[in-house]
């Protein structure tokens, strides 16, 4: 029964992972990826790792929500409902995908996987906590500080206010057509481009 569930969840994870590249919207892609991780989290629960499994779902839910917003922002895809392609640089990505799949597949098939059933009375959540705050404390805390530094860096980089004035001063949004008028906000002060009458 557990084997069947693991197989079904694995198949669902692969299918939703494939959907990420086949759907036509950043929002759909993000949440397809989330469903893939939800399935992986389910497998974690079935493998007697309830905390890691459920926490995966929780973290991925928050993360994919953030990612959907950022991707819609950066892709200039209004609201994430405009059709767009999820794939680019076909030749390189096919090569990289094949290489990664072969390498990971080989790693799984060639490494001796331990058969170490968890005792039903084992308190796996407490053991995980002792491991994380004991022998693995250094790795855990290093990762935490690195992530915090990344977040601070991202906030500082994306801040409009800066030491030398506003970061978007004099910048011009890309045109709707090559060399054309930008959509939405018009640049201040002209910037050398003439406004030919009519609407953009």
């Amino acid at each position, binding site marked *: 029964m557990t084997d069947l569930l693991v197989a079904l969840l694995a198949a669902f994870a692969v299918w939703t992972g494939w959907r990420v590249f086949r759907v036509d919207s950043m929002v759909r892609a993000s949440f397809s990826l989330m469903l893939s991780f939800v399935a992986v989290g389910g497998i974690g629960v079935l493998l007697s790792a309830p905390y890691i499994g459920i*926490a995966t779902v929780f973290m991925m839910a*928050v993360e994919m929500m953030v990612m959907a917003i950022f991707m819609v922002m950066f892709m200039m895809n209004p609201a994430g409902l405009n059709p767009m392609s999820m794939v680019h640089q076909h030749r390189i990505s096919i090569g990289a995908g094949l290489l990664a799949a072969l390498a990971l597949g080989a790693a799984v098939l060639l490494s001796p996987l331990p058969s170490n059933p968890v005792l039903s009375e084992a308190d796996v*959540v407490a053991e995980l906590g002792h491991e994380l705050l004991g022998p693995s404390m250094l790795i855990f805390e290093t990762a935490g500080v690195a992530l915090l530094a990344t977040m601070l860096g991202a906030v500082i980089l994306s801040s409009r206010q800066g030491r030398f004035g506003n970061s978007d001063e004099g910048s011009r949004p890309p045109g709707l057509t090559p060399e054309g008028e930008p959509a939405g906000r018009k640049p201040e002060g002209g910037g050398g481009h003439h406004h030919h009458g009519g609407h953009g």
Partner: protein
Amino acid sequence: MTALLALAVLGTLALGAVFAVAMDGRIAQLAAGFARQRIETEAPDRLNRDLAAVWYLALAAAGLSVVPFAPGLALIDSPVGIVIWGTCEALTIITVFLHGWSSNAPFPLIGAYRYVAIGLPVMLPSMFVLIAAALPAESLSLPAIVESQRGMWNVIRQPLGLPLFAIVVLTLTLRGPMDFADAADIATGTSAEESGAARGLWEIARAAMLVSASALAATLFLGGPLGPVLPGPVWLWIKTAALMAIFAWLGRRVARTTPSRMLTILWIVLLPLSFLHLAMAGVFAL
């Protein structure tokens, strides 16, 4: 016993939702809604438009299923019950977002993005409140958290917990000061392009989430099913109903501010407050 607990979860959800709608004085409005025709928007995301309310309802049910109805008796008696509830919270934000996003129309979309901007920072105090409640029990399991409150309820030894959690509940149920999704100022936001049975189901799911979140608040802070004379489930129902009334009253009485100001309040005031709350709970638990 499992069947009985499943029945208790579903019954509590159904009766509680009716109670929530009645408290808002909207039974007639809701019933009339089911007779109305459905609105179609151009090129919606049909899957999410049709299923958002179902997911909302499912998340309310999943959240309630980890709540113990009697000491030591929960439908899903997981060692990480409180993490399951946290996951339901995070997925609720996504569900509300998809509800607004899927109809492909301006007001629902504004509601969706606005709600996410507020909902994600609300998740942070929520996690600290949940962790603080788990500290005295030294366990992430909800039955253990109930047991840890035999001597003293968490509402007394963690005084900031329930007020902070109230903000989370109001956010999850799209109520009053935290209703940045379906508010009147953007023509009912994520529900603006919805009518008929779909709208009705969304409202029912919102009411069900109030039941679920209030039951969890009762478990975390008011000792859940613990109490003298009366059996456990009755105590849980009484406490849940009382909290539902308080949350509904707060939703009606507290004014909503602008999203930008609410963001400042969340990051500058409530997040440090939740740090303080966790530190106090930790010192007390030691």
